[in-house]
């Protein structure tokens, strides 16, 4: 017979759960409001969501570092906190983008915001646990929400994108479960820290290498999909193209940073256990990713698609940092994303600003390069802002991404992987071409005759401008806050034991 279970509430440490609960509750509230009264304006939901995220952020900031909760399922370590902060800040930039001057399909659904909040909860769970089940469920919750959010844009390409993403995601889920099964088989546990112990104990057993590496390979395949590493990246450009611009920008940061954190937890554990294969494999994937994505970005005709490829390439950088697996490299992952996030979101926001229902310049593309031709004449500030984002993405100092880039490169140099730093450098140089191409179009080409101001300004509104302002400010002024940011991140990463 089972004995009755007595658990004190304190031991559950509910606080660790609070941020996610806030998000879920927020989602439910929105659903309820919709039930009570239909056809409320989206601005209400936007502001509600913003508030909920704000509270969520407050809860995250209130968390204590290195706590476990709920039967040790929850793990609130430093990187969990930083990632949550990143997720929430990005979300706070993302949500106001709903307040365009024109109406878009997805924002007519209150469920959009509810799903968004559920997604947030899923992501937050994913990063603040080292239990493979919770990671899996969090991953799926967020993914399923995300597929829907993409599809809600309600265009051909959106559905196509959602389906592609979904199907490949299902395959990745298969890989993830298989990988987990193998790890479970080795260790009899689904908690990463216990797996680590068990693997450590058994590492010399016959046949163990095959199992460990095999399991790692499956997990790597799953996370490579999420992080869009070559050759698992194929969904990314299409999904970015099909999704609305803000969502594409959001996707290029948030799901990836969560996936990166989880990979950090899993793969660095293995690397530190001495499984060199993992490091090698990740490095190979990372190098392939940044290079191939870069050269494919070169030939794109659409800015959004170009940015998609560029995001893939940046993911390659991140993955390389994870392979390096030092405190500095891990810190650089967060620094990189923290900086990249603003710039990239800003760039996508600029695309959002110039979004039309029907494409003027190209039958298929929303944002072909020609669209931006002569933007300096039509919309000078816009052009300058966009140019700043492009320069930042290309890694021109002192704009934000540069600092992340040199920190990663430096951590590569530190462990003697100068070749990796050189590859990164070469890729930055290649990438400069396509970023520059946009600048060339904006500054050096004549605008199409009928490209009038109203066409370009079509979608702009105060909230969008605010978001742009914030991102520009952060992109340009990065020099002044990188120091404290880096200090905080390093501290947090160190505390988490990475």
């Amino acid at each position, binding site marked *: 017979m089972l004995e009755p279970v007595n658990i004190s509430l304190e031991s559950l440490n509910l606080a660790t759960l609070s941020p996610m609960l806030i998000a879920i509750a927020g989602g439910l509230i929105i659903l309820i409001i919709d039930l009570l009264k239909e056809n409320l304006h989206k601005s209400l939901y936007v502001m509600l969501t913003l508030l909920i995220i704000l509270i969520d952020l407050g809860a995250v900031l209130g968390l204590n570092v290195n706590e476990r909760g709920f039967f040790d399922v929850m793990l609130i370590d430093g990187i969990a906190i930083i990632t949550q902060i990143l997720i929430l800040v990005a979300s706070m930039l993302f949500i106001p983008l709903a307040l365009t001057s024109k109406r878009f399909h997805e924002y007519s659904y209150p469920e959009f915001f509810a799903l968004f909040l559920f997604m947030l909860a899923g992501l937050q769970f994913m990063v603040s646990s080292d239990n493979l089940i919770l990671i899996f469920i969090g991953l799926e919750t967020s993914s399923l929400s995300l597929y829907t959010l993409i599809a809600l844009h309600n265009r051909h390409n959106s559905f196509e994108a959602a*389906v*592609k993403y979904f*199907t*490949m995601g299902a*395959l*990745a889920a298969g*890989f993830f479960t298989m990988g987990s099964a193998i790890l479970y088989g080795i260790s009899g546990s689904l908690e990463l820290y216990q797996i680590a112990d068990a693997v450590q104990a058994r590492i010399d057993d016959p046949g163990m*290498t*095959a199992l460990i*590496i*095999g399991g*790692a*390979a*499956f997990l*790597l*395949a799953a996370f*490579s*999909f999420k992080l869009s590493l*070559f*050759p*698992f990246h*194929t*969904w990314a*450009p*299409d999904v970015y193209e099909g999704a609305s611009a803000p969502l594409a920008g959001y996707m290029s940061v948030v799901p990836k940073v969560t996936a990166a954190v989880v990979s950090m937890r899993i793969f660095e554990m293995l690397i530190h256990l001495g499984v060199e*294969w993992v490091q090698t*494999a990740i490095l190979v994937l990372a190098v392939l990713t940044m290079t*191939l994505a*870069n*050269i*494919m*970005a*070169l*030939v*794109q005709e659409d800015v959004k698609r170009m940015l998609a490829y560029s995001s893939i390439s940046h993911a390659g950088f991140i993955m390389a940092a994870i392979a390096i697996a030092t405190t500095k490299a891990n810190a650089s992952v967060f620094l990189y994303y923290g900086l990249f996030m603003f710039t990239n979101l800003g760039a996508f926001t600029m695309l959002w600003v110039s979004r039309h229902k029907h494409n003027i310049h190209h039958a298929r593309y929303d944002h072909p390069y020609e669209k931006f031709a002569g933007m300096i004449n039509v919309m000078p500030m816009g052009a300058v802002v966009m140019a700043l984002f492009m320069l930042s993405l290309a890694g021109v100092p002192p704009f934000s991404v540069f600092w992340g880039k040199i920190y990663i490169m430096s951590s590569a140099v530190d462990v003697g992987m100068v070749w990796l730093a050189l590859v990164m450098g070469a890729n930055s140089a*290649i990438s400069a071409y396509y970023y520059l191409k946009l600048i060339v179009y904006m500054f050096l080409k004549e605008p199409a005759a009928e490209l009038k101001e109203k066409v370009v300004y079509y979608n702009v509104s105060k909230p969008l401008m605010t978001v742009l302002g914030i991102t520009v400010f952060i992109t340009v002024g990065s020099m002044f806050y990188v120091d404290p940011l880096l200090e905080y991140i390093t501290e947090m990463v160190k505390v988490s034991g990475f």
Partner: protein
Amino acid sequence: MESLVYIALFAPFVGSLFAGLFFARSPKSILVGVVNPALIGVSFLASVALAMHVAEFGAVHVTMMDWISMGGLNIPFGFLVDEVSVTMMLVVTLVSTVVHIYSNGYMDHDKSFNRFFAYLSAFVFSMMILVMSDNLAGLFIGWEGVGVCSWLLIGFWYHKEDKPFEENPSISPSWAANEAFIMNRIADLGMLVGIFLIYWNVGSLQYNVVFDALPNLADGLLVGIAIALFIGAMGKSAQFPLHTWLTDAMEGPTPVSALIHAATMVTAGVFLVIRMSPLYSMEAVSGVSMFIAALGTFVAFYAASMALIARDIKRIVALSTLSQLGYMFAAAGLGAYWIALFHLAAHAFFKALLFLGAGNVMHAMDDELDIFKMGGLRKVMMGSYIYMGIASIALAGLPFFAGFYSKDAIIETAFNEGTYLIWIMLVITAGMTAFYSFRQVFFSFHGEERWKPLGFNPHDMYKYVLVAMAPLAILAISFGWFMDGYKAFITKNLPAYEMSDHTHHIAWLLGALVVLFAVIGIWIAYRKYAGKGAMAWQRDEKVENSFIYKLLENQYYVPHAYDRFIVQPYIVASDKFWEWDNKIVDGTVDTIAKTIYDAGDKSRTMQTGNLSTYLNWMGAGALLLIVAAAISAVIG
């Protein structure tokens, strides 16, 4: 005395600025024509005063200010007026003064009258720096300064168009100017190398320091320095093979030729060798010195041979200059530095006079240069005829004229040194010199007036010009008389070259031989061109078609060779390089970029848009990872 040094140096500079800055854009200004010669005259007077001072008290040495100072190098603007430099100063300023006055007449109708004087005075200034500097770098300033001034002056009539080589061997003034500049630059490189060698082994470029340090230097090094510096001298003094620019430089206005290509600039090379006499007289570099003498002799003969058949009045004079420079180098190379310097001075006077006379002829003949179109001019231009005659006699080295003393001394030296080949060559050349000088005189001033049918209306130069030329004529006659006095003066500074007793005894014989050759030359010229039974003035086809005539006429095909083996290959190589630069160097870069771009184009095809393909990629990727894992497990 310092102020005199500065006056001598800067008076021409002031003149140049005066003409250049204030009158550059105005039409001909009499003021310029007066002030500039006056300033040069002032410089001359200062030089005279300095010469007296030097003779009495020894050298004057002033340092104006630092120029370049870096690391261990310290180059001041320092000026040294000693016996050698003051000789040069006197020659330069005197000839310049005359030329300046002369130019008033000669350039009378030129619309760039003022500009001409600016250049001319600037040239004098550069020349003064060259001779007065107390260090090699300062000398180099003047060296390059005269180079650029000669570039300006040769190309003075820059608006003339290029003509084919067959029509005009010197193509155009601007072409000739560039040629002169570039050729000089080739030699300058040698000179620079010499300077570098000296600096890195001595640590200074000051003459006195260098001379003091010379005995401590290794033999090979000394030879190197001597060769390098002589290469520099070869360029300025137009020694073979860097001689072609001198004849082409006759494209410039005639006063320029008189000043630069007779009296001053071309002698800079000789001056350098004389200046560096402590080096060249060293035992270790005797080989180089001998080479200098040999080359000088060769050039003397070589140039004279070309002058024999030249038809261009100025070319004849130019070639004779070249020839005489050869004499000077021969003397310097043989160690008779003071004789070289003496010949330099004497030559300056009579050659300037000759040029100016030729200028008069040209002026009268509307810039016609072909002596076949002249003749009988003595009737209309008696003054010029006399001057030209005097100068030619001096050049030919007839007794009691300046050329006799100096040239004779050189030939004597060659005999004295036992270098009989040089001696013979020089003697023969002396005969040739006499021939071509008088050929030219007879051609232009004697015989029938061939210009009449061609419609020329010759008239003599302005009186004041002719008067101004008088000092040169006087010196051309009388300069040789001061030889002994000069020797006493100059040998305070330069090694006193003494003939051996043996030579001394037969000196009269040697002199007589030279005179004999000269007289024979003149006689042949007279017989051919002026005498009763003189041949027809018409051109002789048979002679002109002969191989030797062709060879001489084409300057031994040296310009052709340069064009064919240096200029054209250079142009072709440059074009090829450019092509390569575009195709290979730039092409490589573009190819890399294109390869990357094409790789992008190729790899984007993996993005088919078909989900099934994507899944295949993903599956293949996963499988690859897992297979790699399995393999790695097996291996590991």
